[in-house]
């Protein structure tokens, strides 16, 4: 009985295996036949495949190198098939997106950089039967970052902005993905343009930084970078506006034990709370070269009277409250970064006291 049962089970397994082998062999043959038909028009960024190799269907992409999360259009053309009268279906990553007679164009949104989208066109032709073709689209991306050689205080979480005639470094961050993964930014070719003018000296293989001097305050400089692979297979161009700000002075209290109170600036009018106060001036967005070399002048004035500055500590002054009475005085500071035209600014605050 047990033996018979075993035999029946084995019989079922044998039959199942035979059916499986049949499908694997013939299925594999069918797939092989399908792949062997592959060829025809080669797509721009990936391999194409067609059910019917005899039919030339051309898929072109616009823009040629779409960026990440951008709109891109695939245009189908053929000299053998009248696409205007053909029923066309478009698929994106296997999902049907568009269908209809004469639908030659398909517009879609690309994914993040390096994320490949497979766009497939399927056509029911009267002459050639079913024809399909695929194109793989791997978007490139380019971010243009920059930083200015200007002063901001320690612990400042904001950006150091360029002021008139300050130095700016522009650094592109391309996201190019090839068959071996991401391209190293140093293995790409860079072309730089400041305004309308190209900068061939700063352009070339691996030149992934661009340094220039800004124009005058309140203007916007436009820097353009074109980044390409060595073979030109991938390329992207982007512009970034760089707004030139005005430098400014902000006063803070420097407490003996608590340290610098960068969290709150001194308002235009404030009152002594203790017997003395150390006022620290922060010259935001002045060029560092001038500040570090001592070329910048700090002209402190109390009610218009010039105060002698400690050369080792030109950015702050300590004031003591008068012992008697009440009153107020005006503290002024003019910072001039000599050698940088228009890098100058003044600030005034009123400090009051009351001993009553």
């Amino acid at each position: 009985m047990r033996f018979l049962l075993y035999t029946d089970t084995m019989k079922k397994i044998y039959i199942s295996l035979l059916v499986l082998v049949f499908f694997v062999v013939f299925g594999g043959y069918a797939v092989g036949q399908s792949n062997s038909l592959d060829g025809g028009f080669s797509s721009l960024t990936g391999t194409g495949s067609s059910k019917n190799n005899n039919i030339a269907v051309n898929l072109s992409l616009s823009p040629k190198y779409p960026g990440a999360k951008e709109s891109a259009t695939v245009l189908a053309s053929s000299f053998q098939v009248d696409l205007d009268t053909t029923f066309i279906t478009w698929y994106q990553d296997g999902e049907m997106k568009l269908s209809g007679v004469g639908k030659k164009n398909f517009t879609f949104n690309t994914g993040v950089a390096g994320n490949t989208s497979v766009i497939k066109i399927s056509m029911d032709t009267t002459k050639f039967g079913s024809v399909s073709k695929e194109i793989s689209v791997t978007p490139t991306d380019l971010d243009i970052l920059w930083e200015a050689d200007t002063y901001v205080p320690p612990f400042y979480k904001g950006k150091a902005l360029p002021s008139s005639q300050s130095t700016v470094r522009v650094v592109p961050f391309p996201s190019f993905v090839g068959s071996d993964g991401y391209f190293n930014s140093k293995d790409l070719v860079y072309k730089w343009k400041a305004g309308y003018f190209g900068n061939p000296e700063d352009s070339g293989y691996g030149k992934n930084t661009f340094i220039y001097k800004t124009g005058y305050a309140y203007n916007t400089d436009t820097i353009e970078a074109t980044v390409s692979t060595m073979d030109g297979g991938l390329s992207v161009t982007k512009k970034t506006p760089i707004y030139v700000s005005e430098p400014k002075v902000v006063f803070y209290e420097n407490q003996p034990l608590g340290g610098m109170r960068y969290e709150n600036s001194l308002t235009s009018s404030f009152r002594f709370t203790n017997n003395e106060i150390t006022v620290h001036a922060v010259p935001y967005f002045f060029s560092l070269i001038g500040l570090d070399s001592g070329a910048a002048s700090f002209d402190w004035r109390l009610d218009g009277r010039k105060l002698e500055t400690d050369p080792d500590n030109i950015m702050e002054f300590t004031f003591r409250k008068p012992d008697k009475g009440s009153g107020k005085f005006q503290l002024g500071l003019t910072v001039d970064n000599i050698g940088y035209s228009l890098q100058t600014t003044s600030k005034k605050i009123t400090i009051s006291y009351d001993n009553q």
Partner: protein
Amino acid sequence: MSKKQLYIIVGIFAIITLGFFLASFVLTQGNKKPDNNQNGSISNFFPFGNSNNTTTTSGGKNQAANDPNSQQNIATGVKKNLPILRQITKKAVAGLYATQKSGKSYVNYTEKETGNVFETRLEDMQTNRLSNSIMPRISEAYFANQGNSVIVRYLKNKGDTVSSFILDIQKTAQQDLDNASTSATLPNGRFLPAGVMNMVVSDDEKTAFYLTRSEEFNNRSSFGSVYDFEKNTVSEVFHSPFSEWLPVSFNSKNVLLQTKASQNVPGYLYSFNIKTGILQKIIGGINGLTTLPSPDGQHILYSNSTKGGLALHVLHSQDRTTTDLILKTLPEKCVWKNDNVTLYCAIPGNIPSMDYPDAWYQGTVSFSDNIWQVDTKIGKVTTILTSSGFTMDPLDMTSLTLSPLQDYIYFVNKNNSSLWAFEVGKAEI
């Protein structure tokens, strides 16, 4: 003695005993006062001033009863009817750490003027000193390693060079705190390299990621390193020709790096994979971008600059959709709940027309905030704290931190760097 007599004597004794216990119970109930510490009692609505003692707890050796930094209006060691909004310190703090012991919420903090580390139990506001090493003029403090290490950051001499010292609290506590109230001790710990620009502690608190940069501007590079608190090792993991990075989160595999923000400058947020070295953009091209990732990293709260103001959004990383929030604030004034859906945000009552976030970072503008709860799934917003009902001080909240038990929101008032706690568990929603 007959059995009957014995039963009578035992019965009488039992009745007397029962009567005694009954009388004691009635008397005890009669002397008991109403519980003023109940949730929702009217006393909760008066800030700071209530002093109805209910129970007394024993004071610890190192508690800050005589410390000038101890919380105002609250005597140490005495449990009170505490308001839902509490000022924990009068003095400025450089950083805070939310923790819990035996199911009770504690907040640790570093005092700016001394560098001393304290802990306060929220239940009764009892404060203990954890470190008495004098390190004045502390600007920033980052807690790590289950609160046993604090990276204190301060300016070296009169220059702009930042020193970062890893203070080992555990050793300090074991060795020196017996004399804490009388004499200061030398700090235990070690220095990170000079000039660390910005840093972030990893989610598991075992490591910290920090950034340094080379001096020469034209060939400048920034370097990202990981410090391991347990092994006391440093490994360089990141190198970039750009240096204005702000690390916003770190989970030991990925660091989220945000570009420093300004009103008219497009900002970017990238994820840097330490293993593969790949820097991948999460969001970018947004003027004035500042960000706050959710605990699971799947949602990014971000703000962008508008003309003279701010707008707030949530990016859902998985499906790349964005929820626009009707509230206006900076992500630095928010904290995510552990459910990765709920946000608590400090919302300014009025936002004067200025350049943001620049003006707030420069301290040229100050806000008076209320706390709102935000459901980022459906966009529902609810006020949970109107601060003017509790204090006259304008609260410009920053460093919002949720307690591990999710019952308190701690924050620093940027106006004077004082530390506060809001009992969110008792907020009326």
